[in-house]
């Protein structure tokens, strides 16, 4: 793609492309500039490979688009990737260190890696490279807070998982107060599984339930994975709640929950975590998944701004690809490239002075990408969450609530209302 062609057609990158092109014009030089190497440590094999491959797609497309806009001050981006397989702290840190040692990367932009205890931040800090990730963990915020000087270059491109907790409670209360949903009672059941992500969200719901007028009637931890829900359903049926929140996230297990729940349902709204965003959830659950609500604190918005990105992504990677996932690293590359250009260039590893400049620009630059607005919290360096954390949608990434209304089609965005493309529909099993 030529630079002119790109600027004429890719409105998805909108202001970012224009800004970057302007910066590049101002810095235009006759000599050919060396590429800017940057890296990514992604789970390209192992159980998270599906997402890892989409993260890679997002990076590749971003490199194509950024380079078409002139790269970073005339220097094209050059992507290097290391596989983190089944992930874990040892594998991920070694992969990141290899990126630094072999390719002298200026930045590392990951999707997510699990089981790392955020030790990636130490690799980034020790080598003075810029690090953006989408682990979606509150432990990132806590680690930055513990030593802001050391972790100046570490950023989480989305809000931490904690916000799923207050977010779902706010959503349920809003739904009830607006008369769209008649709650059976004020009880909420929490079903989680033994992993950090699910447990943090479940604990946040439990901790904040009373603030939003709910009582926790059941707190059940299931094994990971878990496809037989008989004992859990028996408990739910003994004491039916107004809402069942399942923070376990594997799509096949959640589909099985619905298949086993639907023949003898309780009059409860069902909210689930992450898994319903994947096509496998609908393929396995079929009609049984209609009515299920899930949410994500980051994902491609179904709006006109993101439409060209969506089209380019599916054209390049196929109709079954998941731009909802790839959009995360896509925005991450753009945000970093702009910050690096504003700072006067992307440094080599170890150049602390210049890297601090890039980090400072990234912290101050609010970026409206295909996932909404990314604005980093000073002192914590993860994205603000709208509307759970900030009231201004231009200053926070939207916490999107989606509902499966017809399993043969994509789920509908029903909240926040500013971005909604459809209204909440009463689940077919609720007869109140």
């Amino acid at each position, binding site marked *: 793609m030529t630079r002119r062609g790109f600027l004429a057609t890719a409105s998805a990158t909108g202001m970012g492309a224009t800004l970057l092109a302007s910066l590049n014009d101002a810095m235009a030089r006759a000599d050919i500039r060396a590429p800017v190497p940057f890296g990514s440590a992604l789970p*390209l*094999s*192992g*159980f*998270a*490979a*599906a*997402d*890892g*491959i989409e993260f890679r797609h997002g990076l590749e497309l971003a490199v194509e688009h950024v380079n078409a806009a002139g790269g970073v001050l005339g220097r094209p981006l050059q992507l290097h990737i290391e596989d983190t397989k089944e992930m874990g702290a040892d594998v991920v840190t070694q992969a990141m260190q290899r990126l630094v040692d072999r390719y002298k990367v200026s930045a590392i932009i990951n999707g997510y890696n699990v089981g790392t205890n955020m030790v990636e931040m130490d690799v980034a800090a020790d080598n003075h490279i810029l690090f953006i990730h989408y682990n979606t963990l509150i432990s990132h915020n806590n680690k930055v807070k513990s030593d802001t000087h050391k972790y100046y270059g570490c950023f989480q491109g989305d809000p931490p998982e904690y916000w799923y907790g207050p977010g779902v409670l706010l959503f349920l209360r809003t739904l009830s107060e607006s008369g769209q949903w008649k709650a059976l009672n004020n009880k909420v059941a929490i079903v989680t599984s*033994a992993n950090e992500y699910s447990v943090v969200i479940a604990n946040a719901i439990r901790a904040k339930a009373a603030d939003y007028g709910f009582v926790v009637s059941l707190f*059940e*931890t*299931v*094994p990971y*994975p*878990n*496809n*037989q*829900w*008989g*004992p*859990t*359903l*028996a*408990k739910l*049926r*003994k004491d039916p709640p107004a809402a069942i929140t399942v923070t376990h996230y594997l*799509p*096949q*297990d959640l*589909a*099985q929950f619905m*298949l*086993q729940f639907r*023949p*003898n349902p309780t009059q409860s709204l069902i909210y689930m975590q992450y898994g319903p965003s*994947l*096509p*496998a959830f609908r*393929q*396995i659950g079929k009609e049984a998944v209609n009515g299920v609500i899930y949410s994500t604190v980051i994902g491609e918005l179904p709006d006109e701004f993101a439409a060209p990105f969506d089209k380019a992504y599916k054209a390049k990677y196929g109709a*079954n690809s*998941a731009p909802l996932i790839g959009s995360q690293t896509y925005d991450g590359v753009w945000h970093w490239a702009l910050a690096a250009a504003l700072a006067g260039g992307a440094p080599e590893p170890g150049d602390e002075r210049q890297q601090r400049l890039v980090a400072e620009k990234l912290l101050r630059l609010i970026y409206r990408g295909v996932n909404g607005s990314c604005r980093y919290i000073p002192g914590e360096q993860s994205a603000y969450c709208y509307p759970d954390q900030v009231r201004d949608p231009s200053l926070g990434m939207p916490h999107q609530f989606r509902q499966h209304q017809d399993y043969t089609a994509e789920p509908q965005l029903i909240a926040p209302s500013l971005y909604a493309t459809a209204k909440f529909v009463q689940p077919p099993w609720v007869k109140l």
Partner: protein
Amino acid sequence: MDVAIQILVTGLTVGGMYALSAIGLSLVWGALGMLNMAHGVLLTLGGYVAFAAVTYAGAPWPVAVVATMGAGALMGFFIYHGVARVLLRNPEFDTVVIIATVGLATALEHIVLLVFGGQPYGQPVSFQGSLSIRTINVPAQNLAVMVASFLFMMIVAALLSKTRTGRAIRATAQNRELARILGVPVERVYAQVLAISGVLASISGLLLSGITMLSPTLGDDPMLKAFIMCVVAGFGSVPGAAIAAFALALVEQTVAFALGARWGFPLLLLLVIITLILRPQGVLGRVRAIRL
């Protein structure tokens, strides 16, 4: 009453899933003294072959099932001729074959990843509908898993005890050299056992992927559970593996309801540890294991 039925149904379903995974693994160990660590990936391949036959070739489901069984048998032959036969003369066969099949499993899993991608899929070859018992609903796919595990157990038992092939397998398992002198085609027996195991694994993978989903790591968890059941029963005891699978699954699900779902699997592992302390050879295992 409904709670008891619910626990029973869930326990039998989970037991069926454990048993399905364990039978093929136990058969190969009993007959060949070989711990086939690629058993899990054979389940994965079985699921994907059926998926590909229906989705890409437009085959009807009976053809997909036959293709799955054929692929499983072929993979069994491949494991024998490509891995086991080469290593049989090695005095450390028991150990090296574990390493070799781990490597094979890793390679096959990555091939699946390259061919089909990492995105999970639903299994198109699955049973729809359900059976209602009072207020409890049992999906048809779960029933199929339970029935298949019983059927496989009986078929394998009948094969070993009633057929000429079964007698050859048992003779080879007891004394390979004597069996050879008596005219048993030992090498063919080895290949047959791995092929039968491959067929069992592929059908198991097809059925399990109807409950879970298709992903390159589909076989990992069943492989772990199968290993546990075989250890408890005593390696090589096919009926023992199936009985252990159902018994432990029922205990697991009862505990999950009574104490909370989080305690089910840990308590199952505790039972395994106690069993191995009291009977290191497994509940139904022989004191002195026979090796080929």
